[in-house]
């Protein structure tokens, strides 16, 4: 059988093309042949100039204007067919030699060789030898030789082609003339035409007449063939008709069929191939007849069935090709299936091969891809039966053509289809949920048995054909897609065939089909530095505001609606800063998988991945981290990983694995490679939008002296030094420090000016930032009061819980990097800022425990003496509101001052009881902050803290600390304190109450804020007790007594005597009172208010037993002057002196007391005296003064 038969076959002239005259390089030969083969059609009109009519042409109806001769160049020639008498088109009618002159110097020899070669082609009528690129000498020599050599002088391709066309037209003309000669001779002389069918059957004498008729018929048929070859269908038709008649008469069935076939062809040529349904019907009818006749001829002679059946098949194929249109599919299918059924009766394997190839081709033309694939596979099997490399290569090629129909295409060959499947995949991923049926359609390739068989055959054939890459690809596809259906042994076999193939491949070769492992995206772990990238708004200076959740709500409805959140989550990478991506690998097969290297494959080209190598044990999955560095600004697209495994580099796309997993979830794909490796189910991770921004500064921080948590006692004040360095490659130009987290108020100060002054912080530069912390108070819930030892562990836990405050640095590089970001086309023209969060790890431990606070009052009587500091002196010195009882010329730092003039009557002390449950000793200091008014004399001492002496509290002990409250007294009682009370006194009681309470609270707070209780423990821990609440409750009731001075101050002093005494006595008498001596004294009464006070003064003296010793029976003191009922008026802020004398009869201790009843008291005084009713007399009493009376003896 012959390949590629069609209706046209009958009219095609075969020309053998023989390379002659030495070796021709393959590519040059190919070039010559390609030049030659483009002229396979020669129009009759173009050859008329070469055609010479020697005698009257037998082709009377030759269409010179429209007809054409068709050539078929048989490269290398072919041996003569036994059937060439039967079908003239099988003859080689001309021989063309091709000679490459540079490889054969002697052209004469070439001509001889060619002539010799031509003798093998007995049927050939015309010989030509085309000699290309001859040298000048050869041109000269060849020009005058009389042979078939045609020289093609070297020139450009176009003119060579023109030359070639001309030569072929000449050849065609010669052929035409030869045909004429042959036809004329055959008509006149007749020829003996035989086929192999006739060989044995001799012509008996009784059949001589029949034989002669047969011979005539056959001659007519052959003449018809020549007419067809000469492109004269009308002549051919005439001869065929005669031939058919004769054959029918003689019962020459076989030749009858041949003639009929020729007449159908003639009919078609005559009608110029137009698809006239009438002609089509005619042709169909004739051809069915032809097929019938051939079948009949073989039936009549079953021994020859094998040889005639090929003509029947050829006829069927010709008809099928002619009809091959979709509308006539049924008919064509019938023809082809009939032909395929005959395959078994073909003896020659080659014939069967050709049959299947043709059937497959026709099915393919018809659009029946699966049928075509089926027959292609049959072809491949036939090829594989032949045991040679060429056949194996053919088998491999044919099988890979079937791959598409079986859905096992190599990705490299089906780039387009995979691209469109990618699209569907992505839309599917975005849609999230898809209709189940369309999910099903994603996994169309379910004929797994067939697919495996075909892949295995591809593998086998490519191994035999010696194509390691194809073998690798087939084995990879087989292993990846069908591992669940392959036994572990088979899997190992495939693995070894993969490595065997790889051995024969050059290293670093890539293959479009990926093998193992399966790779899916696990997650994008967010690097802390990436999490803290904050978009900067060029218009907003404080871009850091609002970037951190500011309110008490974690979720705010306003931030949700912003356009940034509507897109997929985005990741920003920074040029030059390494990143990590976690992927999960799975090896579901039964062998150890060694991945030589795996790295992220990035199409955008702005990423520098770091390869790693992995070893996966059988049936295992592993999560690995793939890292890399972004190199350029712009978006990064990570479609998958590049894997170097089994010696070949392949691309593994995440999307494909996602599809597999999705299919597995639906039960559509054989198996989930991750699940069968024991890896858990994972939500499909979509690759986020990743963009790379230009380098940003990167601050790193560490606490000087170690990053561990500072263990502090409650209230302890601690300095932390935080060192901040710029690890990036861009200077920090903007920085802002803020606080967040819990216990923010425990950060007392941040020396942010240290950072600000260091800006711009160059890359590599460091700044140290001191931060002062005050340990917060543990809440009562966390502290078990009984066991202080547990406090440490509980507080440690607390600090882990995140009770530590966070220091938040917002910083940014220069905003001039704009130019480079324009590449990315992003709308924000300023590189983003960043945030660094430094947790201030503080572990709060319970420290000094406050037990209670009490207000105590204390009386210490003053001594009477001569040289009291005169209050009027003070008044002279300073006209302002100086506390008269405080000596101004001495301001010692001791809080504890017993004022002898004032006495210490009604001294009020705040007692704090503190216990120490800790392991260390504490020392407590009380500081009182005094904001004294300006004093011209000694400004140095203003605004200073007075402190008491230290109190040490040992571990597990309690102690009390006394705080005197004297310093807070106001100098003057005036209505300013109560002014508001007075103004609104008449209005509303409740509002007065409220206001006075508020006043009170304010004054208490003012007072409390001045008192600080600090402690110190060990060498370097110190702090402050936070006991304001306790203070407040202790002082609440008696704040007025503390703050306001008494309206009247009473003082006593000895009247200065005349200095008549001797100096020796003067020492004794100084400040001393002697018995039996009249002692002059003065009572000083000072009005502390701003109003005149009228009062009745009385002075008493008591002895040590407390009895009044001036009045009564047993009075031991005599007096002169008025001591009771003295009516005096004291002007505001003035002092008056009342003199009197006492005469002590008995030495001992006495106490002088002044008292007064104020007449017409103002409201202020009443309020101060806590009177209940307005008519109640206001009684004022001074502090007692002690008098020691010495005996005179």
């Amino acid at each position: 059988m012959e390949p590629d038969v069609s209706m046209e076959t009958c009219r095609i002239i075969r020309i053998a093309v023989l390379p002659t005259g030495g070796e021709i390089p393959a590519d040059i030969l190919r070039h010559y042949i390609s030049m030659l083969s483009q002229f396979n059609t020669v129009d009759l009109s173009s050859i008329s100039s070469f055609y010479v009519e020697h005698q009257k042409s037998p082709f009377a109806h030759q269409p010179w204007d429209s007809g054409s001769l068709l050539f078929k160049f048989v490269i290398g020639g072919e041996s003569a067919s036994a059937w060439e008498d039967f079908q003239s088109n099988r003859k080689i009618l001309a021989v063309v030699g091709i000679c490459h002159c540079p490889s054969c110097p002697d052209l004469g020899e070439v001509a001889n060789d060619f002539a010799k070669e031509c003798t093998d082609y007995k049927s050939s009528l015309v010989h030509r030898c085309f000699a290309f690129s001859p040298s000048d000498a050869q041109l000269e020599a060849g020009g005058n030789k009389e042979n078939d050599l045609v020289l093609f002088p070297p020139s450009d391709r176009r003119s060579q082609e023109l030359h070639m066309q001309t030569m072929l037209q000449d050849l065609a003309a010669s052929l035409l003339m030869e045909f004429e000669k042959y036809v004329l001779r055959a008509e006149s002389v007749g020829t003996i035409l035989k086929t192999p069918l006739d060989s044995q059957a001799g012509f008996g004498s009784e059949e001589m007449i029949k034989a002669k008729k047969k011979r005539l018929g056959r001659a007519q048929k052959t003449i018809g063939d020549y007419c067809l070859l000469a492109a004269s269908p009308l002549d051919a038709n005439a001869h065929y008709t005669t031939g058919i008649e004769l054959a029918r008469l003689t019962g020459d069935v076989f030749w009858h069929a041949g003639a009929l076939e020729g007449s159908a062809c003639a009919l078609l040529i005559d009608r110029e191939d137009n698809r006239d349904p009438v002609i089509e019907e005619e042709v169909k009818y004739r051809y069915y007849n032809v097929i019938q006749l051939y079948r009949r001829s073989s039936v009549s002679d079953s021994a020859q069935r094998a040889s005639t059946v090929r003509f029947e098949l050829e006829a069927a194929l010709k008809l099928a090709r002619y009809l091959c249109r979709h509308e006539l599919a049924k008919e064509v299918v019938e023809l082809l299936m009939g032909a395929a059924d005959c395959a078994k009766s073909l003896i020659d394997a080659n014939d069967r091969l050709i049959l299947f190839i043709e059937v497959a081709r026709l099915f393919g033309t018809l659009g029946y891809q699966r049928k075509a694939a089926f027959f292609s596979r049959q072809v491949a099997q036939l090829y594989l039966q032949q045991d040679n490399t060429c056949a194996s290569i053919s088998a491999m090629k044919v099988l890979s053509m079937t791959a598409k129909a079986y859905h096992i295409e190599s990705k490299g060959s089906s780039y387009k289809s995979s691209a469109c499947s990618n699209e569907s995949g992505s839309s599917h991923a975005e849609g999230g949920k898809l209709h189940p049926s369309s999910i099903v359609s994603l996994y169309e390739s379910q004929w797994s048995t067939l697919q495996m068989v075909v892949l295995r055959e591809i593998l086998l054939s490519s191994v035999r054909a010696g194509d390691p890459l194809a073998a690798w690809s087939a084995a990879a596809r087989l292993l990846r897609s069908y591992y669940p259906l392959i036994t572990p042994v088979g899997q190992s076999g495939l693995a070894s065939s993969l490595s065997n193939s790889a051995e024969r491949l050059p290293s670093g070769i890539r293959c479009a089909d990926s093998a193992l492992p399966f790779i899916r995206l696990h997650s994008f772990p967010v690097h802390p530095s990436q999490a803290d990238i904050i978009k900067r708004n060029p218009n907003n200076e404080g871009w850091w505001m609002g970037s951190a959740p500011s309110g008490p709500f974690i979720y705010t409805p306003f931030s949700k609606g912003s356009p940034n959140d509507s897109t997929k989550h985005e990741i920003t990478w920074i040029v030059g800063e390494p990143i990590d991506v976690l992927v999960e690998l799975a090896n579901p097969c039964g062998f150890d998988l060694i991945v030589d290297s795996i790295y992220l494959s990035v199409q955008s080209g702005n990423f520098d991945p770091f390869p790693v190598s992995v070893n996966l044990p059988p049936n295992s999955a592993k999560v690995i981290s793939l890292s890399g560095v972004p190199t350029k600004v712009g978006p990064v697209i990570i479609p998958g990983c590049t894997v170097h495994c089994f010696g070949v580099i392949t691309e593994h796309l995440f999307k494909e694995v996602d599809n597999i997993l999705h299919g597995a979830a639906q039960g559509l794909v054989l198996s989930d490679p991750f699940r069968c490796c024991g890896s858990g189910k994972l939500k499909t991770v979509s690759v986020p939008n990743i963009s790379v921004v230009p380098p940003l500064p990167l601050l790193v921080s560490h606490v000087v002296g170690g990053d561990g948590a500072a263990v502090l006692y409650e209230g302890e004040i601690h300095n932390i030094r935080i060192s901040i360095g710029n690890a990036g490659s861009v200077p920090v130009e903007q920085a802002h420090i803020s606080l967040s987290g819990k216990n923010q108020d425990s950060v007392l100060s941040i020396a942010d000016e240290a950072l600000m002054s260091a800006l711009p912080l160059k890359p590599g530069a460091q700044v140290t930032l001191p931060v002062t912390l005050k340990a917060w108070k543990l809440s009562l819930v966390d502290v078990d009061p009984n066991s202080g030892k547990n406090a440490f562990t509980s507080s440690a836990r607390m600090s882990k819980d995140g009770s530590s405050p966070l220091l938040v640095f917002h910083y940014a590089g220069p905003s001039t990097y704009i130019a480079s970001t324009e590449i990315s086309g992003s709308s924000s023209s300023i590189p983003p800022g960043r945030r660094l969060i430094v947790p201030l790890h503080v572990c709060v431990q319970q420290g000094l425990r406050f037990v209670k606070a009490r207000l105590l009052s204390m009386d210490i009587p003053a001594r009477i003496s001569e040289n009291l500091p005169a209050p009027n002196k003070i008044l002279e010195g300073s006209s302002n509101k100086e506390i008269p009882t405080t000596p101004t010329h001495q301001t010692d730092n001791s809080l504890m001052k017993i004022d002898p003039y004032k006495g210490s009557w009604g001294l009020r002390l705040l007692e704090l009881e503190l216990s120490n449950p800790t392991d260390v000793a504490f020392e407590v200091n009380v500081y009182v902050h005094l904001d004294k008014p300006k004093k011209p004399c000694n400004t140095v001492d203003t605004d200073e803290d007075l402190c008491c002496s230290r109190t040490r509290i040992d571990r597990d002990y309690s102690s009390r600390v006394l705080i005197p409250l004297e310093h807070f007294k106001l100098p003057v009682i005036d209505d300013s304190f109560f002014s508001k009370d007075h103004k609104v006194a008449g209005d509303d009681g409740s509002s007065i109450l409220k206001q006075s309470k508020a006043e009170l609270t304010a004054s208490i707070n003012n007072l409390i804020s001045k008192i600080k209780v600090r402690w110190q423990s060990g060498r370097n821990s110190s702090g402050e007790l936070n006991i304001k609440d306790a203070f407040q409750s202790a002082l609440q009731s008696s704040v007025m007594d503390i703050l306001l001075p008494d309206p009247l101050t009473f003082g006593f002093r000895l009247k200065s005597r005349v200095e008549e005494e001797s100096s020796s006595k003067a020492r004794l008498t100084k400040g001393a009172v002697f018995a039996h001596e009249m002692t002059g004294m003065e009572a000083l009464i000072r009005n502390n208010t701003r109003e005149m006070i009228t009062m009745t003064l009385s002075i008493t003296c008591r002895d040590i037993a407390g009895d009044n010793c001036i009045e009564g029976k047993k009075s031991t003191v005599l007096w002169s002057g008025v001591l009771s009922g003295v009516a005096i008026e004291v002007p505001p802020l003035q002092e008056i002196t009342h003199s009197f004398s006492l005469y002590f009869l008995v030495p001992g201790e006495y106490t002088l007391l002044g008292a007064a009843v104020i007449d017409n008291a103002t409201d202020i005084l009443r309020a101060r005296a806590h009177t209940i009713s307005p008519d109640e007399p206001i009684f004022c009493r001074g502090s007692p003064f002690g008098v020691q009376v010495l005996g005179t003896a």
Partner: protein
Amino acid sequence: MATTACFIIVSRNDIPIYEAEVGSAVKKEDAAHQHQFILHAALDIVQDLAWTTSAMFLKATDRFNDLVVSVYVTAGHILNILMLLHDSRNEDGIKSFFQEVHELYIKILLNPLYLPGSRITSSHFDTKVRALARKYL
């Protein structure tokens, strides 16, 4: 007499959702592949043919060597095809076989847990089909 028969249900996406060798002939691994190959190839013709006729049972739509493909097209959403490759000429038996299997298949479809178009894994179905094959083929 040993018969060869290979039965396949093809869903509308051309995916085989059920396949069974139901012949009584001794099974050969190679032959099973060959049967599936033939049935797969026959799909082309069946899909063309199904639209030209209203009949559900299409006998002998395709053949290769001695094996014949008979087809029963169900009234699925687009196309559901029951295909049988056989060498027996018992046309009535094949038709009855198809009808009964069709009923079974409908029962499978009625299962709310069955995703139309996915593989039929019910062993009950398998047993029934094989029983039917023994009965009719």
